[in-house]
């Protein structure tokens, strides 16, 4: 029996080791941390979009400005209430059916009924006008609408993809069609024959969800994956010395922030929030944890050209000033150096989550830096959902989080949901400022670019002074690309893995 077992195992191993080690085929293997949790665009729509399987009516250029995609052009009525989107002619879904306005209107109406930004736009109706025009009627003027239509959750699927409002299969219009899906980890795509746009060079690609950053880096280094997304700082340093891969980096519209409960007794005075901000040595923190210069001198990184204000006085490091600001508020050092006022210690809980592995590390550094000015932080590293949950039940004190400002290419969408008059799950808490609210509101219906610029500057300046959230660091996305691939790019808006522009090196 033992002999049989021995032989069986040996032959099984021999058979399996016959397979080639490296991905020496014509398939581009992509590895990234995101799991495929379902077919619905609200769940994994971003992956289908990144793999160029599906498309939206509107795309974004490198600066985040809306550009035509499935909608070749659009117009807005004078009162700003009626938008007409003309569809690109000759577009076919992967099942061979033609893209028609009625189907598009139906898809957008379904998307609007699910959680997502589209559900927050003031839309009265979405309907078809003929075969090639979609008409969206608003209840009030809302210029960010066009950016909202670029969100991955507003992707256009074929009528056959739906059973009622549920998505049963992914039938898109992109240059690649889905050939296999093994949720939650894997999918494969193949180039379609009659794509309406320019035909890409790559024929086949796979996507693999790899949760651990070290594994992803090792896959890049061994050649097991050709395009590895989201590298951790340690792997980035190591891979930069490897001759087998090329590292691409781009500043992305995502910031690490401390969300502050401005209604908390210790934090309601703006001086307290400013003191916390002054206690943070952002440059040291970014160099030690993120390993690239990324200290956030304001909320928006330079990659968000429209919202980044280069003339704004930067957030500074000044522990002495911080101490004197807190002294003005009546805080005095206790026996152990922690500040006290009316018998209460300046002790707060900072909630964070390890989905981005650097966040708990940043929290530990913040804990040290704030202790220097006499503020005690307890770190609660938990599930990301605790941030919105504690926001809603009012128990949140501080939260360290990473916020993506480009869920749609124009951050106005995120700003409206995070910093509106009632605050937002991932933004302000118990903070409001009438001037700021007015600026944000006006931004939703003005069309004049220069007026928009001054409104954005006003809004950003108010946030810089009042600090409803305290910016800590800016993000940089890094991708490792096999040296056998040419033309690979990283999209700062995280909408595409760039399959359309890649080709194999000759």
């Amino acid at each position, binding site marked *: *029996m*033992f002999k049989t*077992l021995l032989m*069986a*195992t*040996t032959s*099984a*191993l021999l*058979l*399996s*080791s*016959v*397979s*080639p*080690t*490296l991905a020496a085929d014509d398939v581009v*293997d992509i*590895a990234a941390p*995101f*799991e495929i*949790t*379902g077919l*619905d665009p*609200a*769940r994994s729509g971003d992956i289908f979009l990144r793999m160029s399987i599906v498309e939206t009516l509107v795309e974004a250029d490198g600066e985040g400005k809306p550009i035509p995609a499935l909608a070749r052009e659009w117009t807005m009525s004078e009162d700003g209430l009626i938008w007409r989107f003309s569809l690109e002619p000759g577009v076919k879904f992967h099942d061979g059916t033609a893209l028609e306005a009625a189907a598009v209107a139906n898809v957008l109406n379904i998307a609007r009924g699910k*959680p*997502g930004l589209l559900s927050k736009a003031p839309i009265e109706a979405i309907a078809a006008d003929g075969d090639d025009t979609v008409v969206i009627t608003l209840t009030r003027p809302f210029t960010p609408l066009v950016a909202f239509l670029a969100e991955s959750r507003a992707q256009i699927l074929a009528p056959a993809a739906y059973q009622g409002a549920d998505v049963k299969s992914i039938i898109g219009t992109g240059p690649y069609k889905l050939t296999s899906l*093994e*949720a*939650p*980890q*894997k999918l494969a795509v193949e180039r379609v024959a009659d794509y309406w746009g320019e035909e890409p060079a790559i024929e086949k690609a*796979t996507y*693999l969800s*790899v*949760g*651990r950053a070290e*594994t992803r880096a*090792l*896959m890049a*280094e*061994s*050649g*097991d*994956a050709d395009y590895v997304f989201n590298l951790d700082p340690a792997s980035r340093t190591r891979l930069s010395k490897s001759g087998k891969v090329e590292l691409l980096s781009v500043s992305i519209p995502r910031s690490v922030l401390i969300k502050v409960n401005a209604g908390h007794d210790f934090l309601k005075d703006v001086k307290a929030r400013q003191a916390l901000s002054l206690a943070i040595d952002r440059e040291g923190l970014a160099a030690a944890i993120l390993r690239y210069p990324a200290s956030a001198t304001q909320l928006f990184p330079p990659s968000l050209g429209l919202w980044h204000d280069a003339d704004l006085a930067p957030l500074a490091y000044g522990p002495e000033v911080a101490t004197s600001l807190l002294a003005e508020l009546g805080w005095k050092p206790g026996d152990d150096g922690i500040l006290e006022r009316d018998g209460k210690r300046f002790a707060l809980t900072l909630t964070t*989550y390890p989905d981005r592995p650097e966040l708990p590390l940043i929290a530990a550094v913040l804990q040290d830096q704030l202790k220097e000015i006499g503020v005690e932080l307890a770190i609660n590293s*938990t*599930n*990301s*959902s*605790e941030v*919105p*949950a504690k*926001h*809603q039940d009012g128990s949140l004190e501080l939260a360290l989080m990473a*916020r*993506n400002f480009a*869920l749609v290419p124009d951050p106005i969408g995120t700003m409206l*949901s995070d910093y509106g008059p009632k605050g937002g*799950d991932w933004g302000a808490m118990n903070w409001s400022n009438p001037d700021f609210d007015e600026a944000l509101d006006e931004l939703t219906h003005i069309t004049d670019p220069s007026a928009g610029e001054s409104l954005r500057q006003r809004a950003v300046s108010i946030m810089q002074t009042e600090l409803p959230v305290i910016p800590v660091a800016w993000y940089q996305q890094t991708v490792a690309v096999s040296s056998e691939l040419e033309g690979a790019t990283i999209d700062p808006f995280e909408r595409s893995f760039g399959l359309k522009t890649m080709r194999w090196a000759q």
Partner: protein
Amino acid sequence: MIKAIFNRLLQAVLVALLVGLLTFVMARSLPGDLAYRIAAGRYGYDLVGSAAAAKVSAELDLGQSALAALGRWFMDLVRLDLGTSLVTGAPVIDEISHHLGHTIKLSAAAILLSLLIGPPLGIFAGLRPGGVLDRGLLLVSTALRALPQFVVGLILIIVFGLMLQLLPTAGHDRGGHLILPALTLALGLAAVSNRVARDAMLSVSRSPYYTFGRTKGLSGWQVFLRHGLRNVAVPIVTYLGIQFVYLVEGVVVVETLFAWPGIGHALVHAIFGRDVPVIQGTALVMGLMFVALNALVDALCHLTDPRRAA
């Protein structure tokens, strides 16, 4: 025999009930709001918010009492229905069967590899106790047991994936992908099974019947085959049953490291996402697997033990 089968079946039913109850209580008593956690599992943290949580809560009827939810799960279970995943919306049975296949493949390869590595080395060491092989094996076995599986896996990837370029690092679409995760688990299992085999071999080789075999003129190899092998196999097979615990524990770590889509990986994600039916379903299947494997080990012991065969 019929009584033994009946006992195992009864055990399986009790395990199912107990596991269902315990995992439900544990999953429900974990901190955090259920609706928000499920929304985070579904939509990712960029998109989780109160609107998504409210939608999840309404859709899944999370307002109902815990007792009602548990009752519904048991009623479904009686109809052999494990329910629907709260995160993906797919039937739990489909998710489990997809993952289970991968885990069984990985575990079977790990057990076979460990049997190929551990017992033969242990037997050789037991034949020459205190020799170089014996002492060396003790050292390696101790080191392997002391290192977390995560570290063993990483070392294997670095050596075989990067330095030697012999095997793929992570993934699951080619046969070669199976070797490194299976080897990671196998080394941990072999680290113990070689000691069990070594001790068994030592005690068998010192037994009167083994010495008699020698004195009646059989060669070392002949006496081992006729009087040693089956006697040594019994403790190894018995120990295999105990090692399943190590295997299940290891599968969770190894699957995550190697991006292997197994049941351990699914369980971790289900716990993060508070996907109670998936947690219950996976734990239930794992529990039943335990019962089945232990029954199998019993049967194997019964077959291999020369005293019973006689």
